């Protein structure tokens, strides 16, 4: 079984500094840079961590703790690490590149080297597409890195052409583009400005995914990069069918504007998009979940995820509430193997 969304915790700047080049190691000390923790998951917020994983100051910050918290109890074959440390928050392009490299080095040395079940996503400094391409090239030979990771809202919508060299490089190496909830906070988390509450920020992530998917489709990203596959991670799922009905309709009316979109967006999504199933965002009743899965055309687009340590729901294991146990094999074995071609190659 494969867990497609697991979050390793960076315990503090001191964990990363050994992996930084001397200039940035000195800068951290000289300038008092405290770390790159993001407001996307406030430390104390209930959503950020299940109570059971808060013992000892927070969730797993090392491979041994992750094994005892997650991999051993669930009997996982693999878990894909998606570090959410805020490299994407950084404005200085050189600093972003240095910290991305250091973070990936830390993941390789402290996590992947210590537990053969672990896989990871490549954190890229998308602020500078050339540096992001270089970071992918640096990791490509290490097959334990199985996807490229970016936050859903960054400096430009994800379909914009300035980013295509990054997506091309990912596709060239069989790395899906993993788009995770979170923001570089270059813009308010809603297109109507900054909301007052954290709960609104958390809710707005699902809207960020709708905009990002619109951008990826309408810019022709999938037409121009035929091997690109995209995984939406922690996006929520139930917004997808209604969203595609609407985008299909607008495409029928306005496709003159985007002639490279040569088939309905829903068909493109079915071929090229996968989503982690947690959170799913349905009432906790089996019937509604079944109806939503039917509207998705079945379970083919869904990947199992614990979303460790986030506290999305109270269902144990890899499936969100309401999913029948029979779905586990497709979501946790068949679909991840198809979505992540490098998974078994390491």
């Amino acid at each position, binding site marked *: 079984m494969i867990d497609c969304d697991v979050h390793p915790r960076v315990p503090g700047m001191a964990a990363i500094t050994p992996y930084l080049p001397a200039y940035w190691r000195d800068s951290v000390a000289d300038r008092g840079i405290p770390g790159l923790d993001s407001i996307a998951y406030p430390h104390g917020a209930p959503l950020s961590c299940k109570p059971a994983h808060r013992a000892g100051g927070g969730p797993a910050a090392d491979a041994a703790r992750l094994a005892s918290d997650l991999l051993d109890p669930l009997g996982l074959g693999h878990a894909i690490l998606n570090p959410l440390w805020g490299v994407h928050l950084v404005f200085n392009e050189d600093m972003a590149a240095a910290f991305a490299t250091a973070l990936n080095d830390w993941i390789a040395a402290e996590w992947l080297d210590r537990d053969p079940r672990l896989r990871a996503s490549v954190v890229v400094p998308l602020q500078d597409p050339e540096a992001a391409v270089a970071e992918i090239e640096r990791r490509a030979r290490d097959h334990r890195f199985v996807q490229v990771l970016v936050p859903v809202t960054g400096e430009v919508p994800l379909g914009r052409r300035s980013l295509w060299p990054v997506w091309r490089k990912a596709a060239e190496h069989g790395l899906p583009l993993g788009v995770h909830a979170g923001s570089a906070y270059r813009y308010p988390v809603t297109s109507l400005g900054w909301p007052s509450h954290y709960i609104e920020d958390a809710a707005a992530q699902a809207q960020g995914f709708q905009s990002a998917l*619109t951008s990826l489709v309408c810019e022709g990203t999938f037409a121009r990069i035929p091997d690109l596959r995209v995984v939406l991670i922690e996006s929520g799922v139930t917004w997808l069918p209604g969203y595609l009905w609407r985008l299909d309709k607008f495409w029928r009316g306005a496709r003159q504007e985007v002639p490279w979109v040569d088939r309905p967006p829903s068909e493109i999504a079915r071929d090229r998009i996968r989503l982690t199933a947690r959170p799913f965002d349905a009432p906790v009743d089996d019937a509604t979940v079944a109806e939503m899965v039917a509207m998705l055309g079945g379970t083919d687009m869904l990947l199992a995820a614990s979303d460790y340590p986030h506290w999305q729901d109270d269902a144990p294991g890899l499936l969100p509430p309401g999913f029948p146990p029979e779905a586990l094999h497709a979501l946790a074995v068949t679909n991840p193997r198809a979505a992540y071609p490098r998974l078994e190659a390491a």
Partner: protein
Amino acid sequence: MSEVLAKPLLVDVDLHPKLARLDDLRPYLTDRWWRHLTTYGARYRHGYAKGFPYPKVQPLACRRDAWPEGGGDPGSDLGLMARQHLDPYGVDIGILNPLSPTGQGELDDDFSAAMASATNEWQLHALVARDARLRASVVVPYEDGPAAAAEIRRRAGDPRFAHVLVLSRTAEPLGRRRYWPMLEAATEAGLPLGIHVFGYSGWAMTSGGWCSYYIEEASEHAVSAQALLTSLVMEGCFERFPKLRVVLIEAGFAWLPALGWRLDRLWARMRDEVPELRHPPSHYLKRHVWLSTQPMEEPGDPLALARTIEWIGRDRLLFASDYPHWDYDDARQALPRRLDADLRAAILGGNAAALYGLPSPATARHSDGGT
């Protein structure tokens, strides 16, 4: 009774009238604001002096056949609107939502208020007085809460106004305090808050930056509407104004169930952050929100649409044609046949009659409007 039942009530909650000439506003503006309008013009939260940041797919986003032969923009000739739309479809009540130039979203708050008030006078004199089927919107300078409230109070009790009109892309999420005076006044006046998509917030069109295309801007309206409702709910607006009723116009509706489920899940986890809420978010969405149909989502399987409507509520959807815009919906064709007859009748008119307190079909019907 039988002739009355032959055609269900038809209420169109989204008609777009247009000034025939800018001069038509002259009688309703003071000298100062007329000079301002003709000297500086409208200034919005975007950079274009003419046209739109994202060029529409048709001129003025209008039907090609809706341009009056005598000149003027689509929607500016009431006779043509009647011949093309109100008469042949037997529209019993049509709600006017003027979009521009109305002063909404204007950067100068005082000019915004003057234009909004002038637009309301124009609707009454040029449109509602000439066709008994039409109802006006209270156009408000929504970025200035107290001024918007004053305009609402000026129109309160006048049955010629159906709702208060706001554009969806506000400068802050609509539940924020700057808008409370407006929400309060609308509630006191017993007028629903009609929120029509478009407008320019000044923020990027998406939470991840500026998109490139009109198709994205159009799709984004459903996205920003989700943030808008999230704000109204989480700021406690429906607790503070328990009789507040909101109508989302042209935002689609299939996204609403998933939004409610997501908000409920997050609220169960973090309700301590928003203690004003005494119920799960979906409770408020089900009781305070209505949505117009056009442009309605069209899944391949119409039963999926029927199911979605059941989740939203059979009494929540209101027919809208969007005349004279390019993606106009035909009242006879727009609703899938797979929706049952009662539901179709409710969407075409019954729900709007209940929401807006319209007269019953027999008395609402224009004397020669039924067939």
